């Protein structure tokens, strides 16, 4: 059964006091919560400011290290640009040296043309076997590929022929 207080409110003992305190207490709790959050956030900001100051000071002290390192990186980039430029190019002497080293004995070049894709040679040999050896030698070369021999003329113990050999462009093949 529900209890019913039939007294007028002013005669109900204790209840007025409790009610009059309830609302301010509630406000106080809410306000305290706000203040707590606010102070916590401000504390975090303060810690961040301290750390920033500390780091900024240390970083400023290490400025010469940065300058030195950035100077090295700049110079290395400059050097790398030059090296890359040379690596991009065909180093002709390396290819002609390879060509000379792959020529079989008895084969003599009369005319040599090089461009960035292939080498065209007009040469003389003593035997067809030497021409065959030349094809094998250039097939085995890392700097050349697909040697193709055009017309071969054989007359009085001399074999004249023309050959076209594609160049293999390999990064880092330089004469330096």
């Amino acid at each position, binding site marked *: 059964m529900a209890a019913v207080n039939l007294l007028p409110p002013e005669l109900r003992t204790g209840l007025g006091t409790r009610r009059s305190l309830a609302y301010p207490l*509630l406000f106080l709790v809410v306000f305290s919560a706000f203040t707590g959050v606010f102070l916590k956030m401000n504390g*975090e*900001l303060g810690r961040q400011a301290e750390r920033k100051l500390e780091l900024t000071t240390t970083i400023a002290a290490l400025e010469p290290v940065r300058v030195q390192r950035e100077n090295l990186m700049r110079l290395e980039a400059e050097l790398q640009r030059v090296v890359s430029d040379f690596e991009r190019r065909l180093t*002709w002497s390396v290819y002609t040296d390879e060509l000379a080293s792959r020529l079989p004995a008895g084969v003599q070049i*009369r005319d040599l043309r*090089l461009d960035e894709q292939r080498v065209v040679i007009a040469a003389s040999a003593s035997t067809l076997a030497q021409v065959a050896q030349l094809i094998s030698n250039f097939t085995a070369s890392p700097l050349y590929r697909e040697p193709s021999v055009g017309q071969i003329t054989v007359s009085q113990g001399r074999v004249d022929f023309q050959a076209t050999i594609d160049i293999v462009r390999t990064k880092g093949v330089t004469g330096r």
Partner: protein
Amino acid sequence: MKLTGREKFLLLMLLIVAMCVGFYNYVYVPKKAEIEAGAAQVAKLETEHTKLVRWQAEVPQTEARLLVVQGELDGWVAEARAVTNTPQSLVFWQDQSQRYGIRLSSVRLSGSQATLTFTAPSYAQTRSFLMEMEKMLAFEVSKARYSVPTGTTVDGSFDIKLHIGPADPAAGGVPVDRTNPFVR
């Protein structure tokens, strides 16, 4: 106006909710954004700091590498960059052809292209001349042609892409007292 207890309670709740909303919007959100921005700044500074501390530990190696790189730049790179314009190119070809006994029969310049036609006493001299050009950034040989008509001398030509700039006006001499352009 007299408010009942329930109305007072509801009014109070409304006031508290309004305060919460106000606090969230005008205090919490800006502070939170400030903290996040600060944390990002601190993280950036920490990264920078870590990097610099690592670099500091590597200072001896950096100094050694600097010496090496600077040495290369002052050495072969400086030599490779010695030719930067057409007058210097002409002087280079003249000097090197004389050095290796090569007779230049023609030098044709067209924009950023050049064609040298020559006769060399031997293939070895031609090879040396070519290697001197290969060391220079200014000269990129795009075609070469050699023929050996007599068995020893080499007739040939080089097509060269030129990587050069305009001539240096400071290298120009002072005008001389001459009015006839048809005498040496």
